[in-house]
């Protein structure tokens, strides 16, 4: 008795510490759950360059919010955009708007102008090789006499053959965005848009950003619509997706959590006719939740919102220990005091905890940091809830506290009518029928490892995204080529080899273009070759320059001066010089520079459709140091690999649990595990009949089902006597609650959570229904007192 008291006091101290730490976390430190969906994805540890390239592409994209304000009339679009910007201007602490600086615009050409003789488009280079001198003479003369012969940069003499003008024009076409009247302008056949590129000053994935930025954007949109009622607003940015995901998750936390709680309270009331058990169970779950949160925070330094969502379902399992104790208390005679009862229940309680923790630890074996955190959170929650039951329940519940109701008696009586499996013909037939049906169902299961299972953005966000990428013709940040070489020069050369292979794909309309640093700074080798080519084809004696002088009546001095002027602009353009200019700002993220003992860069593709990917990715074949990077496919392949691996882990866990339980249950061990195994197979078969595709999250649910289902097996085998309704009651209450909590998870709009919930729903219900069938007919041990 004193030992019970001591234990209870000790645990009270621990719980006080937990409460203190939690109060500190929430009230002093004011922690916010992490909502970054990417944090749930595996970290790629094996290739730092690949990782850096992805960080470059994503960092460039993540903090950006792009708004397009469109109207049929440019003046309307401008007015609406000004109204939009005026609202944003009130919070300059949140955004930096890209300034359209006249000076920058004007100056950005000057760096190229100094090196213009080495800057040619691929087409110009080919023409220089193939076209006769007359062609260039004609081109120069036409340009000379035309009042507006194409883009003109500087005086005619600085670019007599229009080569530099052509190159600049090609560069301009890397983006359809143009400055116009101090705004950025883009258009399609119907509307004219003002482009507002915004950069967030607060982290896009932080809760604060979402809480302050989104209402501001809404306010700006309202102001804009008020100014021009027909305005079309297109908004895109990671923050919009993140905000949507967290709103969805928060909503689901409350639905699942509250639903689960209400279910438990109702069940408890019917079973025990008292609020004391309910409050005790809630106490154990509460301690479990707070304990898990505290320790997780200490371990990980942050907590993910998805962990809390998943943690909400913890209620379903954490209650088992309390329920098991209470059901036995209800059934035990008054002469048996609670500490003695606990001692008798200890083996079963220990095994249920162990099996559940093993189940959750299977999740921790995945490479997903988010899942690992969920697993640790859940396992810790169970341990804390279990300790609360073990330390406090005997002290708090006397032998006379609980009375049972009519519902419990009726439910208990149902056990007598339950079929019991015996080794006979009927059983054999049932097994055969089940085997055939299950095999057929399971064989119908497809597989789906799409990353979109993790997130389900609403249609309007996707529609805006699609429209925006069509208008801006921007490259995707998740599919690109990664180019590596020992030196910067070689990186550029390899880029050029790759681009030569991509050009036919542009001609075939598989992609609309590419962005690469070598578009701006060709390799030194290419620059030298071009200079030589121009000298030979255009500037030589008897060449087009000579002809031009002849046609215009100029003398040898003029030729010499023009030639010297052109050659003065033939110094090679170096990457470092380009990177220092404001002109390189939109492209700097493509250049990884010196990294991991070499150099690396990114070649991004514009207008790449899903259908073209298989062909486009092959462009890198055979070009040394060039690698196709597809983050979407990669995540999908990771999901797929872990679906397969986790399936083996599940099978392994069955073996481990079997070995663990064998010393206690011996020949009956299979009876503990069989209901769960059969329920798992049946759940899979049902999913197969429903034409579902198997994904990682179904398998993870099977892992958890093992943890839960084994509890029921243990409860039943701890009390093999069929006249004892106690375990049957514990199983029923626990399973009903698990179904309530996980069934609600099945209502989630996130496909992954839905799959998880559905599997748990089917599996738990099936375990509940078949677990009595595996009871033994004769009772040999642990008789009911």
């Amino acid at each position, binding site marked *: 008795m004193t030992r019970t008291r001591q234990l209870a006091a000790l645990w009270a101290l621990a719980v006080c510490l937990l409460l203190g730490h939690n109060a500190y976390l929430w009230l002093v430190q004011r922690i916010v759950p992490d909502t970054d969906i990417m944090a749930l994805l595996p970290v790629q540890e094996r290739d730092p360059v690949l990782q850096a390239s992805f960080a470059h592409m994503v960092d460039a994209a993540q903090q950006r919010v792009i708004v397009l304000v469109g109207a049929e009339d440019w003046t309307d679009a401008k007015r609406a955009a000004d109204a939009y910007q005026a609202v944003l201007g009130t919070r300059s602490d949140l955004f930096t708007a890209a300034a359209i600086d006249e000076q920058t615009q004007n100056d950005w050409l000057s760096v190229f102008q100094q090196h213009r003789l080495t800057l040619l488009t691929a087409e110009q280079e080919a023409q220089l090789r193939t076209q006769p001198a007359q062609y260039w003479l004609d081109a120069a003369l036409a340009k000379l*006499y035309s009042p507006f*012969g194409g883009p003109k940069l500087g005086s005619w003499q600085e670019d007599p053959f229009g080569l530099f003008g052509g190159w600049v024009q090609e560069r301009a076409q890397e983006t359809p*965005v143009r400055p116009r009247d101090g705004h950025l302008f883009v258009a399609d056949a119907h509307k004219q848009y003002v482009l507002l590129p915004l950069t967030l000053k607060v982290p896009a994935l932080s809760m604060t950003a979402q809480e302050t930025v989104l209402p501001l954007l809404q306010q700006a949109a309202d102001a804009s619509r008020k100014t021009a009622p027909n305005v079309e607003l297109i908004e895109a940015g990671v923050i919009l997706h993140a905000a949507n995901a967290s709103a969805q998750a928060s909503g689901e936390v409350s639905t699942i959590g509250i639903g689960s709680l209400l279910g438990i309270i109702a069940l408890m009331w019917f079973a025990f006719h008292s609020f004391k058990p309910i409050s005790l169970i809630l106490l154990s779950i509460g301690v479990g939740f707070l304990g898990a949160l505290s320790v997780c925070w200490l371990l990980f330094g942050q907590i993910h919102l998805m962990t809390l969502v998943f943690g909400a379902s913890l209620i379903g399992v954490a209650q088992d220990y309390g329920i098991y104790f209470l059901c036995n208390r209800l059934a035990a005679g008054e002469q048996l005091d609670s500490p003695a009862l606990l001692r008798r229940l200890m083996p079963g309680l220990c095994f249920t905890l162990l099996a559940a923790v093993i189940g959750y630890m299977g999740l921790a074996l995945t490479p997903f940091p988010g899942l690992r955190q969920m697993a640790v959170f859940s396992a810790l929650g169970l341990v804390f809830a279990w300790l609360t039951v073990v330390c406090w329940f005997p002290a708090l519940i006397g032998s006379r506290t609980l009375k049972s109701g009519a519902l419990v008696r009726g439910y208990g009586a149902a056990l007598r009518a339950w079929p019991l499996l015996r080794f006979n013909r009927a059983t054999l037939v049932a097994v055969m029928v089940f085997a055939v049906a299950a095999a057929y169902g399971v064989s119908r299961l497809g597989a789906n490892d799409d990353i979109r299972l993790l997130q389900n953005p609403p249609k309007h966000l996707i529609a805006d995204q699609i429209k925006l990428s069509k208008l801006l013709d921007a490259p995707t940040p998740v599919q690109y080529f990664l180019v590596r070489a020992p030196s910067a020069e070689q990186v550029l050369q390899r880029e050029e080899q790759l681009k030569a292979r991509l050009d036919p794909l542009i001609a075939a309309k598989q992609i609309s273009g590419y962005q690469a640093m070598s578009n701006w700074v060709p390799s030194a080798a290419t620059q030298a070759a071009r200079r030589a080519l121009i000298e030979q084809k255009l500037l030589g004696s008897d060449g087009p320059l000579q002809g031009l002088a002849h046609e215009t009546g100029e003398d040898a001095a003029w030729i010499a001066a023009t030639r010297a002027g052109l050659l003065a602009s033939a110094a090679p353009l170096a990457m470092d010089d380009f990177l220092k200019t404001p002109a390189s700002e939109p492209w700097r993220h493509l250049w990884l520079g010196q990294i991991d003992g070499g150099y690396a860069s990114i070649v991004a593709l514009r207008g790449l459709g899903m259908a073209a990917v298989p062909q486009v990715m092959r462009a890198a074949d055979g070009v040394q140091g060039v690698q196709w990077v597809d983050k979407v496919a990669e995540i999908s392949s990771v999901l797929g690999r872990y679906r397969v691996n986790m399936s083996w882990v599940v099978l392994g866990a069955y073996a481990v649990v079997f070995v663990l339980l064998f010393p206690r249950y011996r020949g009956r061990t299979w009876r503990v595990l069989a209901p769960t195994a059969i329920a798992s197979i049946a759940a899979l078969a049902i999913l197969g009949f429903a034409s579902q595709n198997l994904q990682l999250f179904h398998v993870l649910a099977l892992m958890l089902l093992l943890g839960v289902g084994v509890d029921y097996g243990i409860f039943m085998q701890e009390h093999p006597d069929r006249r004892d309704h106690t375990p049957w009651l514990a199983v029923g209450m626990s399973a009903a609650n698990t179904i309530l909590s996980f069934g609600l998870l099945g209502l989630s709009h996130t496909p992954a959570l839905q799959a998880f919930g559905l599997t748990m729903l089917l599996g738990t219900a099936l375990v509940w229904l078949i677990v009595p069938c595996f009871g033994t007919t004769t009772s040999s041990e642990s008789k009911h007192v």
Partner: protein
Amino acid sequence: MNASKMIRAALAVAALVMTTFPAQAAVQVSKIQAMLAKPAIMCGRFDQTKTLAGMKKPLASNGRFCVVAGKGVLWRTLKPFPSTMRLTRDEIVNYQGDRVAMRLDAKTEPTVRMINNVLFSLLSGDLAQLESLFEVDGTVDASSWNVSLKAKQAALDKAIGTIKLEGGAYVKNIVMSENSGDRTNIVFSDIKTGESALTAEEAALF
């Protein structure tokens, strides 16, 4: 990023268009508008003299031009080298003989449509767009006027320099002085209006 180059081209176009419908300062708009004949079709002869930095002799050329409301502009240099420029709603094309020497498509170069919007609004007598880009200054008397245009935006100003126009019922003369030192002077004459102004060859080009 670098629209400046296309805007320069746009302004070259705008400058050409001003040869038919020049822009005016607020006070002068109505006067010049009233003076201009606004035919649906107008063709004529141009004589262009270019003085280029670093070249001793001015370069003279001549040819025909046509402006067709709702369609676009045709600029045909006949001497010393035949070359044709056609500006329509969706593209700007330069032919040297039958060969296309340059083509700007509105699909890939959005400013093409913008240039042509400026062009068409000018042709319809809507000078608001031009005035949004330029400071217009000049004088008007009973039968003639002359104005000078200066781009409001510094980058544009640097790219195109100043444009001077003079005319009466039609534009007679345009002078473009670039900051690089290159200077272009175009004189218009022999202007005809109506369907008959277009030759069959020119009509086929539209």
